[in-house]
């Protein structure tokens, strides 16, 4: 896999949800690509579909959701063509892993942290051994010792003090930041091609957040992992992402390398988001907000979904769906009027 090939490619992926007898489009023809070691920031408000998209890559959507169109190409292979079994054994926890948001239930409370990490190694062992070999207790004990050693080493790498003691402790004995680092350890232990981070630092104290973010940055550089970093916090993306995709109501409205997005935002929504950041304003000025609400998934149409809240909307915005404008080879905007908007 050379540096220029895409590790993951999403092409026109659409996902629907079904509630009762109503059907809503949660994700509408989303496309992006990531190369090895690249960090794609996926930003947007709550309800814009970024988590849905993330879970759909691992095909772990809730029972009433369906991927209805598109392709997901991982290292040349189409994920949607894989059977559930193959997906589970080869992709999940192996080629693609996920860091979920920190909650009090993010780790299993009745098993030690060590057991959980250890089991992950067991499930993804590469060699298939014969039945007789599995009875070889010495081999088994030795292998278990090696696995345990690997786990503890990884905990140390995540800068968890007294790692071997921590290995036998339970989740409730860890602080929030430490729990996230444990999950990060599980992720990097698998050395995935793509790591999906779904709001990994949300809910942590600000100082802890900064620390975990730095650690994360150094690790993805070390392991050259491609990352999809999902958050609603643009500031974090400015620090960690290589390129950013802004999502609104299920569609990607703008995609650009990170500096260009902040220097030259073209989509009205992106502009509004950046203006909303406290850093953008002047001291003493009222904080900016975007009037209106995100349309519910049942109320979305083919036309521009941001139109009701857009200060620059024109007549064409209500009559025809917007087309993707290509500003440069890496900067895309989904808007009728991006050229004329100031």
């Amino acid at each position: 896999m050379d540096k220029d090939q895409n590790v993951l490619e999403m092409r026109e992926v659409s996902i629907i949800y079904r509630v009762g007898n109503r059907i809503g489009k949660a994700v509408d023809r989303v496309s992006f690509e990531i190369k090895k070691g690249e960090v794609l920031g996926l930003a947007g408000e709550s309800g814009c579909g970024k988590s849905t998209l993330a879970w759909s890559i691992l095909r772990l959507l809730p029972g009433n959701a369906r991927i209805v169109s598109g392709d997901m190409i991982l290292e040349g292979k189409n994920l949607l063509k894989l059977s559930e079994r193959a997906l589970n054994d080869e992709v999940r926890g192996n080629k693609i892993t996920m860091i979920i948001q920190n909650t009090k239930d993010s780790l299993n409370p009745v098993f030690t942290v060590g057991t959980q990490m250890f089991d992950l190694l067991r499930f993804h062992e590469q060699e298939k051994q014969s039945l007789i070999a599995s009875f070889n207790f010495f081999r088994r004990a030795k292998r278990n010792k090696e696995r345990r050693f690997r786990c503890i080493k990884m905990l140390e790498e995540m800068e968890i003090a007294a790692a071997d003691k921590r290995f036998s402790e339970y989740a409730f004995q860890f602080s929030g930041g430490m729990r996230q680092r444990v999950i990060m350890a599980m992720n990097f232990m698998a050395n995935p091609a793509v790591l999906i981070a779904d709001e990994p630092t949300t809910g942590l104290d600000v100082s802890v957040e900064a620390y975990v973010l730095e650690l994360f940055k150094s690790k993805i550089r070390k392991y050259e992992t491609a990352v999809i970093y999902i958050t609603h916090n643009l500031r974090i993306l400015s620090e960690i992402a290589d390129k950013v995709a802004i999502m609104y109501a299920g569609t990607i409205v703008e995609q650009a390398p990170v500096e260009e997005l902040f220097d030259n935002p073209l989509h009205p929504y992106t502009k509004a988001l950046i203006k909303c950041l406290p850093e953008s304003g002047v001291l003493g000025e009222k904080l900016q907000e975007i009037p209106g609400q995100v349309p519910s998934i049942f109320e979305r149409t083919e036309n521009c979904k941001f139109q009701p809240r857009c200060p620059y909307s024109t007549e064409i915005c209500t009559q025809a769906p917007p087309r993707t404008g290509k500003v440069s080879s890496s900067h895309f905007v989904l808007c009728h009027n991006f050229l004329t908007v100031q």
Partner: protein
Amino acid sequence: MRNVAQQGHKEFQKDMNGEFNEYLQAFRKSTKLFIGTILVVTLFIVVICAPVMAPHDPYKMDVKNRLSNISRTHLLGTDHLGRDTLSQIIYGSRTSIFIGVIGTSLAFIIALSLGTLAGYARGIIENLILLYFDAVRSFPAIILILVVISAIGSSVTNIIIVFGFIYSSLLGRTIRAITISVCKEPFIEAAITLGSKKRTILFRHLFPNVIGPSLIVTGMYVPIMIMSEAGLSFLGLGVPPPTPSWGTSIRYGFENIMRAPWLILPPSIALALTMLGFNLFAEGLRDVLNPEKRGELIIS
């Protein structure tokens, strides 16, 4: 894009599906509640219309025809003294419901007073009341009931009193828990801050909010009491004969099980269906009144 009329229509639809309709929707969709209501309503019809429904006088003995099989005059046969089984079952429902409802009401009154007091007053009063609850609860219920009834004699009144006091202890604990959680609500705090008298808070604010959930829990005790009465009668310590009772009928069936094995079936089925009906009804009602479950029912 949508026009104003379409938008208005959408809003109108939202109003139509207001609170009331929500309950109705959930009610229609809940099989539990549906079947439960049918069973309970049937039971009450039988209880009320017993004199009209029963083909014979349940007390009338006809010893020549004892333990007879299903026939046209005696649809379910006769017991060991020649009394018509069907009439016994129909009148037996009256006994069960009477004891179940009155007993539960007594338990509710005791439990509500003590439980609210305990949950609200805290301190020594609470500890004393809890002592009473725990003392009663430290016996297996059936044994306690057995021993007490055997001591003071069994009659409908005695049974109701014993049931009321014994089951009030468990119910009282639950009501105390409900009271404590209601006390934590902000509006109670607001009332205290505003300087309301203790009595006002208790009666105007606390009671109405505690009674609702308490009633639902209390409903669960009706089938328990019906079952306990049947059990007592089965052991011979329940409603004194010749008053018809399902438990006594089952007992007679058991005593004559070799000669007339089918006799245990009608009262057993009646008892099982009654309990099933009440359980379904209580559970179904609890689901419909719970906002989360109600949503699930409507969506499904």
